[in-house]
């Protein structure tokens, strides 16, 4: 990957290229990136309508400061996990990697149509080096802290968990930045700001996942921020449509995630107490078997990068159904398949983008197509893309939750926990791949529909779709990890017939 070189790209180049575009709502230098998103700059209809409170580092500052900048790519992540009190969710420590690699792969394999857009985006965005980010962060810490406190305090008070998270954010700010460096290499600090605009939870999520808050708490907080915002301002309907967190909740993604976490936590406790009750050889054998399960759960990450290479267009529905049948649980992935097919159908019918399997798309006359295209503004496409991603992710998490429930339900098992783990791991890959190709389709649509738009209007929308897609992928991967304790307990119970703890 060429990211290495990109890091070194001086920030100054970006300033000039943006100015060339004539519209400077993207700030000309990183210091003012902070300000760029403030409400007074309101030229953009969708993305730049508000300033989200950003949390800034305070405590972790020294830790990361010690790091040599050159090593920050790898070390940044390590720092994060060292800082973090490790809970049972050791795996979460690595979530950022897979997320980011999928993000990178996504962007890198974008179709021909939009490669120039991306290129343009990248050159105009500029990629600050980690050291620049660090200094900038240090710079910004003082002023933003005060601002953030003012912004968030009316809502941090009210409920317990929320305020814990908020403090965590205040203190993890630093880790957020270092953890996000991989992404920064890629898309640049500017885009992070843009993304933060489109997804308030994004930065927060990254940092927090490494803390001991749960995924649903993080998402919930992000959603609440969005709710707060939507309720505080006179909201145009279209604004609401692009809020991933709100949509994700609307599709019951949050609830299913919370339920899955409950099952996971309970299973984890049971596993621990059973392990404590065992000793000697019995314990060793069990530990060994659990280790195998764990391996199956760490597979997803590695495979993902390889799989990303082959662009085979196997039928998603078939693949998922097949994997599901391997699980031997009675739940069916129909809802998920429907959500996914709806997304493609929408693109094919409303954009006249012919899809092989969709005949209606082909029947359309060329004139109709162009008419249709002009009818759907890039904002419409963007909104639908975000909605589809949220729906697909919610359905995936629902599937995982149902799977957990059915596995725990303890029907007669024709398959071993290990086999199930492998199928689930494969499923996670398929789902993430699907999200990635869906986002590619959407951005291609955006590029086609927005061919006459200014880059600074189009690019943030495209980036937002990619980033929500990679966020989605990471939510799915995190949800997948929640299944590990469930399968562990299933393995144990199936094997030992131990009474429930």
């Amino acid at each position, binding site marked *: 990957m060429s990211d290495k070189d990109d890091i070194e790209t001086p920030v100054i180049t970006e300033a000039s290229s943006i100015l060339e575009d004539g519209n400077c709502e993207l700030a000309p230098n990183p210091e003012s990136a902070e300000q760029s998103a403030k409400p007074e700059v309101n030229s953009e209809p969708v993305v730049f309508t508000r300033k989200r409170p950003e949390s800034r580092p305070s405590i972790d500052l020294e830790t990361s400061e010690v790091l040599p900048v050159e090593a920050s790519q790898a070390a940044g992540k390590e720092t994060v996990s060292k800082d973090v009190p490790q809970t049972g969710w050791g795996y979460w420590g690595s979530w950022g990697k897979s997320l980011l690699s999928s993000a990178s792969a996504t962007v890198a394999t974008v179709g021909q149509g939009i490669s120039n857009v991306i290129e343009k985006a990248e050159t105009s965005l500029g990629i600050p080096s980690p050291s620049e980010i660090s200094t900038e962060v240090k710079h910004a810490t003082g002023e933003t802290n005060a601002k953030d406190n003012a912004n968030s305090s*009316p*809502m941090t*008070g*009210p*409920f*317990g*968990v929320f305020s814990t998270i908020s403090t965590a954010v205040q203190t993890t700010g630093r880790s957020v930045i270092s953890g996000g460096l991989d992404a920064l290499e890629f898309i640049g600090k500017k885009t992070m700001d843009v993304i933060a605009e489109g997804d308030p939870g994004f930065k927060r999520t990254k940092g927090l996942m490494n803390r001991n808050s749960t995924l649903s708490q993080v998402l919930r907080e992000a959603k*609440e*921020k969005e*709710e*707060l915002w*939507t*309720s*505080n301002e006179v*909201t145009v309907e279209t604004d*609401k449509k692009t809020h991933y967190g709100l949509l994700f909740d609307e599709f*019951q993604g949050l*609830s*299913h995630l919370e*339920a899955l976490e*409950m*099952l996971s936590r*309970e299973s984890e406790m049971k596993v621990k107490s059973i392990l404590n009750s065992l000793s000697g050889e019995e314990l060793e054998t069990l530990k060994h078997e659990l280790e195998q399960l764990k391996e199956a759960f760490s597979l997803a990450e590695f495979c993902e990068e390889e799989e990303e290479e082959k662009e085979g267009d196997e039928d998603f529905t078939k693949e998922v159904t097949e994997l599901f049948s391997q699980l031997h649980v*009675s*739940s069916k992935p129909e809802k998920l398949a429907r959500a996914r097919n709806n997304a493609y159908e929408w693109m094919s019918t409303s954009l006249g983008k012919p899809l092989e399997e969709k005949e209606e798309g082909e029947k359309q006359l060329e004139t109709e197509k162009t008419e249709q295209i002009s009818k759907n503004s890039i904002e419409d496409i963007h909104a639908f893309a975000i909605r589809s991603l949220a729906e697909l992710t919610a359905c995936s998490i629902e599937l995982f*939750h*149902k799977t*957990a*429930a*059915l596995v*725990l*339900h*303890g029907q007669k098992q024709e398959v071993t926990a290990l086999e199930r783990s492998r199928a689930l791991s494969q499923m996670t890959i398929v789902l993430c791949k699907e999200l990635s190709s869906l986002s590619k389709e959407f951005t291609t649509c955006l590029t086609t529909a927005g061919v006459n738009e200014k880059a600074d209007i189009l690019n943030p929308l495209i980036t937002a779709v990619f980033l929500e897609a990679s966020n989605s992928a990471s939510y799915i991967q995190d949800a997948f990890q929640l299944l590990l304790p469930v399968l562990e307990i299933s393995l144990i119970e199936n094997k030992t017939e131990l009474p*429930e703890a």
Partner: protein
Amino acid sequence: MTYAYLFKYIIIGDTGVGKSCLLLQFTDKRFQPVHDLTIGVEFGARMVNIDGKQIKLQIWDTAGQESFRSITRSYYRGAAGALLVYDITRRETFNHLTSWLEDARQHSSSNMVIMLIGNKSDLESRRDVKREEGEAFAREHGLIFMETSAKTACNVEEAFINTAKEIYRKIQQGLFDVHNEANGIKIGPQQCISTSVGPSASQRSSSEIGSNSGCC
């Protein structure tokens, strides 16, 4: 869109008593006679208005099958209200109430408001459990009681809303610690704690809450 509070509810009770139908009637205002068995838990949400305050009810509709029992218990945590449902045409569903109640009390906050619901009140001809029996059980265990019909929508709205009123009353009385999420209550994103809580305003009497409207 925005709300003052969010209450988490659970719906519990034997399989086939109409839990999912009650939820569907409450959230979608429709009745579906044939329902798939619920796996684990399903969800629904609706906004209600109590005392001029918007309250979001987040409802966890649990599986009633005995084999899911140990799983559904995990979902009880952090519920502010519970609808404990039996079928007035099947006595055994009434007989199992004690065990459901024990479960609920054991796995959730002691302040949880429990509404006992005798469902299928439209099937008067097949009634197997007298209304008085339901009332007596509720009195004995400190529950609110209503008979409902998910089919005709009779008292469905009331069942959910009266539970919310009771929770709200407990908040007003300071019985619920709204800061503790384990109680199943969250303050809406816009709310400022100082203005919205405190044992003040509402002098709602609890007798009003348990009252049945005449339709069943």
